[in-house]
């Protein structure tokens, strides 16, 4: 329990850092990004929202940096992220919440799948060290893990959409379908998400297979595995409970650390496929210089990553009794 609390504390610090970065970066950058943006807003927005944006970007600095900062923090805490330029006059918060389910469905599901599959394959591969399969897999996955996500996306579009016509080329759903919880829509959405999902899985899985395999091999040299063999336990049980459970622990840590990487790649995948998720919206906002939206999405992405890492930490605490005491 103490362990979880400590991690939560760490996440609060990280979140604070992300928010502060959001605040500081536009002020540190050369150029009048903020002024340009203000010019585009003027006349279209109610004074309250305008004021919030002023605070966020430091235009018309009546205030000192410090008081602007605290005002900014206050706005964030209340969920006032401002008005989106891209989707004017909708609020940023509302737009973000629209995009979120798409990303959770695509990126969330595929990341978990890639991790679970990768870990399982790595487990078996490490266990069957030296087999033909094990000889071929690692180099293959070393190479696939170095593929740029967006390139693989382009390639799969070219191959499966354009050349073979099996899957749709872009979008989250056909424009003609009505959005909602009906069967046509759901099948359509799934159809549209298959290529992006495959792209993410193929690229992300390599790293986790390799680390799990290496962990297994290292764990298999441990005395307690030899002890399990000495006790005459079934190989299955040794592989799972003795080797696997210990080998997965560093992999969970690695999951946390590589998640940022995967999320970055997922953003590009959404972009290439025009998939209406958080990543795609994020890049749209960049292109349109819709900074308010961009900042909010950045925070959203950070929060999601932190939550996923927290989940991995809880899993570690459950699986490893030693962490519970280290606290």
């Amino acid at each position: 329990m103490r362990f979880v609390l400590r991690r939560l504390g760490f996440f609060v610090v990280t979140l604070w850092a992300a928010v502060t970065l959001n605040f500081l970066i536009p002020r540190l950058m050369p150029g009048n990004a903020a002024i340009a943006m203000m010019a585009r807003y003027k006349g279209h927005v109610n004074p309250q929202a305008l004021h919030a944006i002023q605070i966020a970007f430091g235009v018309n600095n009546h205030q000192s940096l410090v008081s602007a900062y605290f005002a900014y923090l206050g706005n964030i805490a209340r969920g006032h992220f401002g008005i989106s330029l891209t989707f004017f006059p909708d609020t940023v918060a509302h737009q973000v919440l629209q995009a979120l389910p798409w990303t959770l469905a695509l990126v969330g599901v595929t990341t978990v799948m890639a991790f679970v599959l990768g870990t399982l394959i790595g487990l078996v591969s490490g266990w069957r060290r030296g087999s033909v399969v094990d000889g071929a897999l690692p180099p293959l996955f070393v190479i696939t893990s170095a593929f740029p996500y967006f390139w693989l996306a382009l390639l799969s579009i070219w191959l499966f959409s354009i050349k073979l016509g099996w899957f749709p080329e872009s979008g989250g759903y056909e424009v003609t379908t009505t959005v909602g919880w009906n069967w046509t829509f759901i099948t359509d959405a799934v159809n549209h998400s298959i290529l992006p999902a495959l792209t993410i899985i193929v690229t992300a899985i390599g790293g986790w297979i390799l680390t799990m395999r290496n962990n297994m091999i290292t764990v298999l040299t441990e005395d307690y595995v030899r002890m399990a063999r000495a006790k005459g336990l079934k190989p299955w049980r040794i592989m799972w409970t003795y080797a696997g459970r210990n080998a997965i622990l560093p992999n969970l840590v690695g999951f946390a650390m590589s998640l940022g990487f995967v999320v970055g790649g997922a953003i590009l995948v959404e972009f290439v496929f025009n998939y209406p998720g958080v990543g795609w919206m994020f890049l749209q906002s960049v292109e349109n210089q819709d900074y308010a939206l961009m900042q909010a999405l950045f925070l959203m992405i950070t929060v999601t990553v932190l939550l996923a890492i927290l989940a991995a930490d809880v899993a570690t605490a459950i699986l490893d009794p030693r962490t519970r005491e280290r606290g």
Partner: protein
Amino acid sequence: MSLPSVADSVEPVGATVGSGPPEEATKRSAGADLWRAIARNRKALVGLCILLFFVVLAAIPGQIAPDDPRAKIYPRGLGPSVHHLFGTTAYGEDVFSQLVYGTRQSILIAFAVGGLATLIAVLVGVSAGYLGGTTDGVLSLITDVILVIPIFPLIIVIAAYERNAGFLTLVVVLGVLGWSYGARQLRSQTLSLRRRDFLEAARVRGERRSYVIVREILPTMTSLILASFLGAALYAVLFAAGLQFIGLGNPNSQSWGTMLYWAENNEALGAGMPYWAIMPGVCVALLGAAFALLNYAFDEISSPALRLRKLENTGVDTEREAKAAVPARPPDPKNILEVRNLSVAYASEHGPVVAVDDVSFDLGRSEFLGVVGESACGKSTLVYAVARLLGAPLAGEITRGQVLFKGRDMVTLADRELRHIRWRDYSVVMQSAMNALNPVLTVAAQMRDACEAHSTMTRREIEARSKEVLRLVSIDPVHLYSYPHQLSGGMRQRAMIAMALLFTPELIIMDEPTSALDVVGQRSLMVQIKELQERLGFAVIFVTHDMSLVSHFSDRLLVMYAAQVAELGRTRQLFDRPLHPYTQGLLEAFPSIHGAKERLLGIPGSPPDLLHPPSGCRFAPRCPHVMDRCRAEPQRLLEVDGELVRCLLHEQAAASVPAKEGVA
């Protein structure tokens, strides 16, 4: 008491335990070892070749590309042809030339960011690990925060405010954000190095902190630093391409990422110019793969466990026919175990090593046999071979001989049959309980799975039996549901012995179970083991380097030297009249707390290198009674007075033992 002279304590280095003859050894340094390791690793070689290929392209693009990449002189949107290997762009430029010229940016970014990120990672990671305290706390917090914040979105945010990010901006931003993973690795490596005495030795002799970090720590972490560099380079190539692809880079620069940007903007895929969109990505992927392969290869090089070595490739005979060729003399029913001509070999880095050479002995039903010897004599390998527990990390294979346990040859038994008798008929106690107990399971769970594997006891019966065996070794049963790390060292060791007694086996093999305990603890554990043995009647094979400890408890002793049996006989007899000069020397190497104080000599020199064992007596270089014949002839076991000894000194008194040895 007269003083020992220099001559007595001289350590001649000729017979050194090392790899290879002395003259070669002088040239070997840590750096050379690394190069050799790289050359032997296929992945590293492939990665290196690809990298070299791109470096050449980056250096002399003019010689290789047919055209100026910016020259918009060709027809637009052509497909691949002889003139244009990958077609032309929508603006009439030659794609192939653009690819070649684009290499330079990627290579430069990779190396620049790699260098910058690694530099910061080294500074932060090593300082945090070495200096500790609040410095470590602050640096680690910063590292962890940067590690966790999603970097790509952050970079996009930064690049969004600074449009058309030039090369320098890219390098700085990527470098300043990409060091956290490496810093973490370096920090934990530094932390584990801190326990190494040579760092403390440097401080004690008065070296400055800065010296210690730069000249003592860093040189030992070269492969980690290199791996960190490669990882950062990979990340730089991919992220830079990604940034340029979404339009945040300078659209006029010559790079693969920008090519992709323009290709995407012109819908190259659908418009019949697929290679314009695909090939730059292939290049990025290839270069990335090169870095990834090298990185992975370094992982393998720096952790020996990951390198697989097969014995078959080294020319050692491992066929089963050879094993069965030992003639079948029926086992004596008095003996619970008969080991005949057992040989074990493993594949080392430099060739096959015979770790156990033609060892034979018998074990009576309730007999306590001590197996003694010093490091690398093969005693542990021997007993693990008997227990059929070879494999990583010992990585040996039985190449010859029989192990007759209760009449059946364990060597030829299949795994499934072996599993039936494991733990029920014989069990094993290992040296370090901390390592031998699974850290994520309670003691109860580990006892339970042994019980469940071999019997149909109910949960309640298993719990009762577990508590019973704990009481047998004087552990309060309340500890049954503890995790191993919650028990003290002595308790853990006794818990292991308790576990070995679950089925009251007929044979327990113990590999130095007392060496982790202090003198008083060792004594009480030994007494307890002996008591249990006398009460429950099992046979014991007890491996140790501490001859004086085991001598109080063993019935017979087997002395091993350089993979062979040097002497085997009844304990008391061996102590009162040791026959082999090695045993004599060993006994005289124990100072005593009783009796007169006398000068002792020990045994100068070292055991022979088992990679190239001498053909004559292996103890000859260190033997005070050596004769010419000793070096020339291979030595056989001789039987003297009911004892076995491998020494020519006793030739006269002996009847040699060819019958027992079988195919000798």
